[in-house]
């Protein structure tokens, strides 16, 4: 018997143990996501990848595919809720795209484009989050952190360093670095770390590299995220 489920009416094959998001990615079908990265254990926190399975909503990055599942993803209802989540992420931090080096290559921004987010809708929180420019090669701009914890996972699971962690709780949850001073320069972080490469937004930035690619030629200028990320890359 073949291992398949349907996603928005399309038949999707899967390997036993695969999640819905993984199987969809292999089949070239894009489901929006931010905290998921194919090289890391699914986290399930951003909730952008929420789909409806047999009438019940759940995160597709942590839900294992099962034979005969009927999954809805690209419906106006679900996309409206996903759009609301991106709006929440925008107002929670300080996301000023025009002055951000990651603009055009930012997954949050590209996902918001995909979802047709025309405004942040909610009132802004304008949190006060100082940047950390202490490291010789890397700038940390916490204003843009969406708490996806990809850098936490990369540093812990790949680099074996635990440079990053989340502290605080609730709306005060924030990224910390592994130093008594709280400064990145006082950690063993280097530009070669996996954690330096996984930030989906503009928090972890290589210094002296900003705006190297002209507008029009950046990742999501060339193709929308749905076409770029369908393979989960």
């Amino acid at each position, binding site marked *: 018997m073949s291992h398949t489920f349907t996603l928005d009416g399309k038949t999707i094959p899967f390997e036993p143990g695969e999640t819905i998001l993984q199987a969809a990615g292999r089949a070239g079908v894009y489901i929006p996501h931010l905290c998921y990265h194919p090289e890391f254990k699914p986290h399930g926190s951003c909730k952008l990848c929420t789909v409806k399975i047999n009438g019940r909503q759940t995160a597709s990055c942590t839900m294992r595919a099962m034979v005969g599942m009927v999954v809805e993803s690209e419906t106006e209802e679900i996309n409206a809720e996903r759009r609301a989540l991106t709006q929440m992420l*925008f107002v929670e931090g*300080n*996301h*000023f*795209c*025009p*002055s*951000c080096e990651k*603009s*055009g290559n930012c997954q949050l*921004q590209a996902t*918001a*484009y995909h979802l*047709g987010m*025309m*405004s*942040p*809708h909610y*009132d*802004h929180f*304008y*949190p*006060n*989050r100082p940047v950390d420019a202490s490291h010789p090669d890397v700038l940390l701009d916490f204003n843009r952190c969406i708490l996806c914890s990809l850098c936490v996972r990369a540093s812990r699971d790949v680099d074996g360093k635990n440079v990053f962690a989340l502290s605080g709780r609730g709306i005060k949850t924030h990224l910390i670095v592994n130093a008594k001073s709280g400064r990145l320069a006082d950690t063993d972080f280097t530009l070669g770390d996996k954690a330096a490469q996984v930030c989906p937004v503009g928090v972890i930035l290589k210094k002296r590299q900003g705006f190297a690619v002209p*507008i029009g030629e950046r990742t999501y*200028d060339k*193709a*929308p995220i749905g076409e770029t990320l369908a393979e989960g890359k």
Partner: protein
Amino acid sequence: MSDKKKLKVATTSLAGCFGCHMSFLDIDERLFTLLEHIEFDRSPLTDIKTVTPGTDIGIIEGGLCNAENVHVLREFRANCNILIAIGACAINGGLPAQRNHLPLTTILEEVYHTSPGLANGRIPNDPELPLPLNQVHPIHEVVKVDYFIPGCPPSGDAIWKVLTDLLAGREPELGHGLMHYD
């Protein structure tokens, strides 16, 4: 659409840089087509000083950084049927909002009292001058806004698309390439 039914459009720039207005002009020769359907009311393009009641569309560039911005925004909201926020500053505060993590008192102190090179520094207190707000706000936090055209600035094409969608009675939509926040 006949000439008699031309839509009245008003525009203004609050805490903005007029870049969105410049982009509006980037519609280029399509402006002629547009002018067959609309006429400008209050706008930097006409020098009309007040918004005529019953104006169809108000286009706001820039966020709210002082009391005068609030007065103008309220005038637009009161007199326009449809209000459009155009550009990053109107939509999320933009560049002016980068001051929001600092207390205004600290900023004024720094700018007028403690900056080097100031002689006899005093904070201007002429009643003619609008007072700055404690924080910069996007306009949707103060009045209801009907449509948004993101971008810094949005391209002439994006502005054209939204306006023509509205003129045709369609829900405005920006696809890939036209939708951008920078």
